[in-house]
């Protein structure tokens, strides 16, 4: 099995969001929410992402996604760094509930991959819980191999698809 740097995979994904997240480090302390941005805001005035929003989460965490080795749900040091940043944000935004999606590459059978994706989502969820995020705020869901983000049948695509994604509601 060829080993891929997960950072390289992230870069290969070419996602502007992922690139943005990678190039930015989370501030030690979140700025206070600007006054008057709590309601639906249709004015063009720039005031930063609304606190507790998905944009806020993506801007202030290392990534919303961690990646796994083949047929594994182990959390490695790189994953821990990402999950630590997610845990910090979630602790700072106690009103936000999240869904953690578990996904697999196409090289497993459908039913097994449903179970494997659930294992991966739980691995992420359990880690966040150990970092102080109340378990009742997190819902896990497995999509098995049914929702890949990379469409190829090659090692690079598979590496991108073996993932757990922390999703903050829009």
């Amino acid at each position, binding site marked *: 099995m060829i080993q891929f740097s997960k950072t390289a995979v992230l870069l290969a994904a070419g996602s502007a969001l992922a690139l943005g997240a990678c190039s930015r480090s989370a501030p030690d302390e979140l700025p206070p929410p600007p006054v008057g941005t709590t309601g639906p805001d249709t004015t063009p005035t720039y005031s930063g992402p609304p606190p507790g929003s998905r944009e806020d989460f993506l801007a202030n965490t290392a990534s919303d996604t961690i990646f796994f080795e083949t*047929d594994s*749900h182990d959390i490695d040091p790189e994953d821990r760094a990402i999950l630590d940043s997610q845990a910090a944000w979630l602790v700072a935004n106690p009103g936000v509930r999240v*869904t953690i999606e578990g996904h697999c590459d*196409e*090289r*497993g*059978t*459908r*039913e*097994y991959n*449903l*179970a*494997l994706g*659930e*294992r991966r989502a*739980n*691995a992420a969820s*359990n880690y966040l819980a150990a970092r102080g995020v109340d378990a009742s705020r997190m819902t896990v*869901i*497995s*999509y098995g191999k*049914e*929702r*890949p*983000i990379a*469409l*190829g*049948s090659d090692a690079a695509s598979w590496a991108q698809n073996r993932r757990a994604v922390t999703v903050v509601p829009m």
Partner: protein
Amino acid sequence: MVFRIPSLSAFRHLALGLCLAALGSAAVAQDDVSSGPIEGDVVGGISNPTAIAVPDMPTPRSVGTPAGNTEDLGRQVARVIEDDLRNSGFFDPVARQFLRDVNMPQVTAPEYPAWNQVGAQNLVQGYVQAGSNGRLTVGCYLYDVFAQAPLERAGYEVNYADWRRAAHRCADMVYARLTGEGAYFDSRIVYVAESGPKDNRVRRIAVMDTDGANHRFLTNGQSIVLTPRYAPDGRTIVYMSYQNDEPRVYIYDVATGRQRLLVDAPYMTFAPRYSPDSRYVVFSMAVNGNSDIYRVSVSGGRPERLTNTPGIDTSASYSPDGRRIVFESDRSGGQQLYVMNADGSNQRRISFGGGRYATPEWSPRGNLIAFTRLGGGFRIGVMRPDGSGERILTNSWQDEGPSWAPNGRVIHFFRTPRGNSLPSLWSVDVTGRMVRRLPTPVGASDPSWSPLRD
């Protein structure tokens, strides 16, 4: 639906009772393609398919029906029968330009020398008649051309809309009589219809006849749906749906179109399959990263846990007598096949080859288990329930999810190509020699065969 052919005046001169006497010798003549242990040599019909003629069926009177006039129906019924027989791999239908017109008297008095001349070993004739009761009658007669003897006859009375079923029943009669195998054409397939790109796939439960006709979508594609399975009684379909973003097992009532949640639990339930008596569903439930196998009554209630290991236990399938269950587990490290008693006791591993083994399904005959073998691609294979006699039947990039025909002779599965392409349904017979793609309007996966219809 089957009835004895009425003694129509046109056929009164026929002493079909005589054919009973002829059956004995004819049966001997057919022994080379007759039944036997499935591992035995029943492939004579495949390497040397039987030449069979299926001429258009005449009608005593051309009558318009909601399904077309009976003259047209006679032609179409013959073509459905011919296609069924060809697709089974056991038969080589005589080309249409060599088929002769058959009139009503000839239906029961075939011109054997003429059929012999075009190379037909067997002959299927029949007639199509509109009844005064608003129903269609199809007579079906099988002859041995060499022996110049009738082999079997049957009559089917159906609603006009069901005319294809009468054709499938006739083909089933011919297939069963000449091969010794059980019938299977008059059954349905439920599967997952797939369309759109891989990262935004629309999935709908769909049903169709075994030849792809009478296709219908059961769900609208708003939620991901997976792994539909027909109940052995044919009345319901159990499947998994992501309705409300909660992946759970549901039961769909074919007659009413209603669906209901099988188990009300805050966990993912998946990989459902019915017990042979249709009273229970065996399924997997994932609790905090650990998937085990459970059993629950179809009417609901508290699930009974059958496995209890830290690994992934899933894809459970009952033996036809309901006493044992085959399933896959990664408790040894990778996916392997295990058999246990229906109460969960006596779990033991049966697969020991290289690679991984997944998605076992027990044959309705009980003698074989079909599975997906993983390792350098996915392939469909069969083995005996004790793990011996493993044979790999297909070879492709990804062949997955075998499902048995009601006769335990043919297996459906789905084949996924590399890259961003749609999967499709395929069938293979237990010898592995007859591999064929099934027609579906869009991409297709997770086929499951209904029982033979009543």
